[in-house]
């Protein structure tokens, strides 16, 4: 079954990307938690919420393209089709 389980919401341990950025999920960057200790504390962030935000972001950007124009021309395609 496809359900919510609290125990499954714990994010994986982060691995380091660079001095200030880490990664817990593929393609999702996060701030090094050490930088959010003194002045702003991070929220308790269940895994579903990270996924929801990341997906919503891309969906919103796709919506914006569609809001402004019927189609989006791809630079990569233009360059590979050459002249």
């Amino acid at each position, binding site marked *: 079954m496809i359900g919510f389980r609290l125990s499954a919401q714990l994010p994986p341990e982060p691995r380091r990307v660079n001095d*200030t950025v880490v990664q817990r999920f593929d393609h999702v960057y996060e701030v090094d938690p050490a*930088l959010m200790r003194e002045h702003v504390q991070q929220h308790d962030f269940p895994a579903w919420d990270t996924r929801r935000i990341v997906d919503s972001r891309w969906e919103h950007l796709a919506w914006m393209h569609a809001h402004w124009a019927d189609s*989006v*021309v791809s*630079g990569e395609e233009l360059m590979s089709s050459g*002249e």
Partner: protein
Amino acid sequence: MTATLVTDPVIDELIGICGTDNVFADRSSRVNRARVPAPFPVHRWAEHVPDVVVLPTTAEQVSEVVKLANRHRIPVVPRAGGTGLTDGAVPLRHGIVVDVKLMNRILEIDLDDRTVTVQPGINMLKLNEELQKHGVIYPDDPASYPCSLVGGRIGTSGWSLIGGRYGHTRDLVISFQIALPTGELIWVGDGGGRKVRKSSTGYQLKHLFMGHQGTLGIVTEAVLELVPRPEAEFAAFFSYPDYETAWRSTGALAKSGLATLAGVVLFDEWKLDYLRRDDEAYIPQSDDVRCVVATAMYGTTDEVRPGARRLLRIGQETGGAYLGDEISQGDWASRHDRYATPLHGRLRDGQVVPMSWHCEDASINWSKLPQMRREWHDIVARLGDRFRIFDDWGMFAYTNGAFKPWGDYLTEIDVGIWEQELDDASWDAWVTAKRDIAAVAIAHGGSISACHGACRAGEVDLVPAELGGGWDVMKKVKRVLDPLNIMNPGKYLLDQAYEGDPA
């Protein structure tokens, strides 16, 4: 000082004009109409609380409210979206806030003569959701596209991201109705016809009544331009190893003469460092990506595709490397509504703190960009040396001309300020820095503001210097049209217009 002028009988009169449901004198309504983004220092909030708020629904109500204010000599402050970045909608003398948000109706869509007539409280994104059903849009596209309103766009004479293709607010608003500071309703445009784009009759009053930050009246209705909804969009982002190359490439792209070109933006090294803090598009970029230039095109597919090929070629021939579709398309789509979020803020030890975003904008010619950029960063660096609450968020330069985007640039330096720690000393230092930033713009033959207006503390002091003899004319106009100094008093140093007046 004027707080006592709004007495209960005045409120009764306001209720008589706007209706019981649309007059608010409770504390929450007033405190929440005192501010706009990143405003005055938070500890001075109480100084800006208006006495009463009205939400009129018709032009006649607006007119009556302004006439009442003249009778009682009560200040009036127009408020639209409350997103303005020069504190235009912040009351300096308390008084009546005329909030136009309930005036958000579309009055007419004219597909023959290509206009849409609206009330001033409508938002552009919402308007375009309706317009796109008819194959047209109203292309005023600030980065506050989903939240600023037409009335505020006119009040500030705003700048649009895609103005290089479609023009800016002043080019897109054809005519409008405005309640003058004494309350009379008039229409202004290019000449008299409400849907006429070009006229040589009489003085060109449309420009006079735009960008005045609510000091010359309240717009109550506007006729706006319709353009065909674009068939195609193209965005290309290029990277460069150094500023000099990126700057030259920006010039070449902007001068390409491609009619579908909507804008060219140059992000400098500081901006890149800042974007690398938390932006998924920039974190993975290699270290030799030091500057980025973004371009966008809109139009018919038949124009955009060949134009895009040409644009890619110019970008590459002038030293740019195409950054790929994902960042080009993704980052561009986020420009219509994205701005600094507070957690971009960093102390010098790297700790994250919530900072508010202050952007200083100016109009600067292309040839002057490299030099003034150095001077601006130096000002902010000195500020940061003294107070840890300031953070340089980098600069961009963005094509500024309407339809011919090559001569001058909206140039912006973004500064994060940790307002929780703000005190009088750091505020004063900030105001001084703003004045210095404005002075640099003027010294390089530019203008203090390309889009927001220049009436915040600091830069406003230099408005007379920038305008020269024009400043005297501005004061005379203000005094003639607003004899009692009712409309948004205290803004733009315009109290000087009344100096020598018997009180």
